[in-house]
């Protein structure tokens, strides 16, 4: 049976991030965590392969203990196994250190069951680098297929895969051998709605937790802050909007009056608009 590993990351839902009105820093508190949306395309594609050809799907994430929720969600969609790679030693990792740790963990997974395919999202919405997938492929010497929009076929016996890759000029159809690593493009599929039995199974499943040693890492110099050469030279917040929305109100609340009041206000603020309209009316 094919063995597919899907790498996912839990990220703050960027649609719901607020900037602190006084200090201008990002307020993480209360911002819900979600699975990186690009990773969902990767997971769904893996699950479709499972549906069509039969496969065992393992999801893996490196992150803080709360990332377990993301894995549980992946299980509810139909993944078979979930591994949380979590250790204080990983804190502060950039893409180089992250791909090192994940590659090492996948190496450990492989000891139990050889891996045929690794799926990643195209990039994360909180980092936007698109470097982790290729980093893993390189380290594990997997055939790297990035920006894949669809999988045409997988042949487990011949150990071949045919995919479509979006490129600037059009669509490339590529065939390569397994094992390979695929990063999925957005919009390539739509995540399924989990079934009730899968929801219950996910709630019941114990997610395995791997620390640094379990992930096969002895030397700490390649992980966490130490293994991260990236330097963040400056962080700044775009200046907040100074214009506030105005509320149009009238005594009557009658739509006619409201519209009139709105127009009056616009005309006072932007006299040129009024002139423009007057001109075109003539």
């Amino acid at each position: 049976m094919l063995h597919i590993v899907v790498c996912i990351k839990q990220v703050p839902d960027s649609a719901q991030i607020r900037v602190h009105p006084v200090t201008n820093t990002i307020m993480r508190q209360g911002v819900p965590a979600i699975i990186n949306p690009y990773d969902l395309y990767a997971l769904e594609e893996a699950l479709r392969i499972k549906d069509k050809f039969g496969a065992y799907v393992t999801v893996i994430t490196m992150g803080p203990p709360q990332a377990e929720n993301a894995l549980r969600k992946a299980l509810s969609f139909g993944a078979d196994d979930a591994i949380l790679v979590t250790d204080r030693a990983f804190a502060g990792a950039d893409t180089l250190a992250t791909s090192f740790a994940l590659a090492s963990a996948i190496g450990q997974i492989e000891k139990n069951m050889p891996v045929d395919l690794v799926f990643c999202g195209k990039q994360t919405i909180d980092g936007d680098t698109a470097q982790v997938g290729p980093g893993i492929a390189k380290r594990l010497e997997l055939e790297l297929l990035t920006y894949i929009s669809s999988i045409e076929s997988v042949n487990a016996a011949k150990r071949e895969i045919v995919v479509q890759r979006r490129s600037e000029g059009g669509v490339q159809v590529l065939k390569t051998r397994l094992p390979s690593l695929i990063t999925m493009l957005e919009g390539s599929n739509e995540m399924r709605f989990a079934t009730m039995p899968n929801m219950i199974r996910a709630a019941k499943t114990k997610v395995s937790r791997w620390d640094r040693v379990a992930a096969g890492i002895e030397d700490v110099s390649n992980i966490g802050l130490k293994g991260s050469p990236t330097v963040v030279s400056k962080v700044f917040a775009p200046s907040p909007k100074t214009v506030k929305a105005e509320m149009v109100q009238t005594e009557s609340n009658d739509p006619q009056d409201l519209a009139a009041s709105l127009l009056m206000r616009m005309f006072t603020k932007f006299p040129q608009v009024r002139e423009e309209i007057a001109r075109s009316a003539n």
Partner: protein
Amino acid sequence: MEKFDCIVVGAGPSGNAAAYTLAKAGLSVLQIERGEYPGSKNVQGAILYSDALERIIPEFRDEAPLERHIIEQRMWVLDDDSYIGTHYRSDAFNQKPYNRYTILRAQFDKWFSEKVAQQGVLVICETTVTDLIMDGKRVVGVRTDREQGEVFADIVILADGVNSLLAKKAGFHPELNPGDVALAVKEILFLPQESVESRFNVNEGEGVVIEMIGKITQGMMGTGFLYTNQESITIGVGCMLSDFKKERIPPYLLLERMKNHPAIKPLIQGGEMKEYTAHLIPEGGLRAMPQICGDGWMIVGDSGMFVNAVHREGSNLAMTTGRLAAETVIDLKRAGKDFTSANLASYRSRLDDSFVMKDLAKYRDMPGVFHANPQFFTTYPELLNNAARTMLTVDGGDKKSKEREILRSFTRSRTLPGLLSDAYKMWRALR
């Protein structure tokens, strides 16, 4: 097909209290919540009453996300541009363990749900229960909006909040009467911690509650409220749904006007709006309470009308009913008894013995009296405020004449028998 000892529908305070208590006693529990995560659907900013939670999770103070403990309660009766009222503040409220806290529901419910999951409850979110599965008259499970969505249990606890569609569908609950529910709108306004503390004259961790009645509801039956959080303020107003329908006043406009009241405006000035929400509160009291249990099912929290509108207590009744329902189930299970309507009746007697039914019984006439007598929301606030102004304005008039003038203003607008009858009604309703 999965079968559990118990299915709990909803992960608000009542459902969490029930699920936690059941799982702690070793029962297998499935909890189903339609929100993205517990708390995601719940109106933010509220008062938490310690006692009810303490009986479930005694160590909650060390872990739960709490905003401020309350040391001062203000009651304001408002006219258009003034208020008269009382403030009660006591350093006794600074003695640990604290009695009341402000909380942000989204964070609090999430924490509570984590505790529930730690007890071994299978918590499933983003899933809506669409129907109860019946075997004759008996509830044997629930149907959800997911594929292969049927799950079964010996008992189903409905903790699905006000306007329980499930109870209605199953015929346990009549259609909600707009006269039995309030529509409340509220906002969370962000303010720096220092502003909150200086404006309300409190130290770090201390908080203030303001309860308001009067012209802010424009003649409708309702109240306004304001709570201080760590670095935000919750402000809101709620009126009976039937009144909103009749008066055709948009709720947000009511809140907008209230925020502009000269006594309120300076308190919230500069506040950045974080959240605006609208939610129903079941306020019909004892007279509007549906049947609360039957063969294989029980109702807890808002879906059973367990709200004390006079004191704005809801979450504590929700937690208490959730816990008592769970304890009923645990005892029956231990005694090897079936969850029949007759056996579950002990839920009702547990409720009767608790503050829940005693308080609801005490105020059972309140909704009716206030409905029939809008003068309590309009005329009296005006009369009281005018009386204060008359007495406090030094203008050469003598005090005795002023007193007479005030008395005349009362009898003129309510007549003497009217005043006596109002006083009697209030006494009856509050007795």
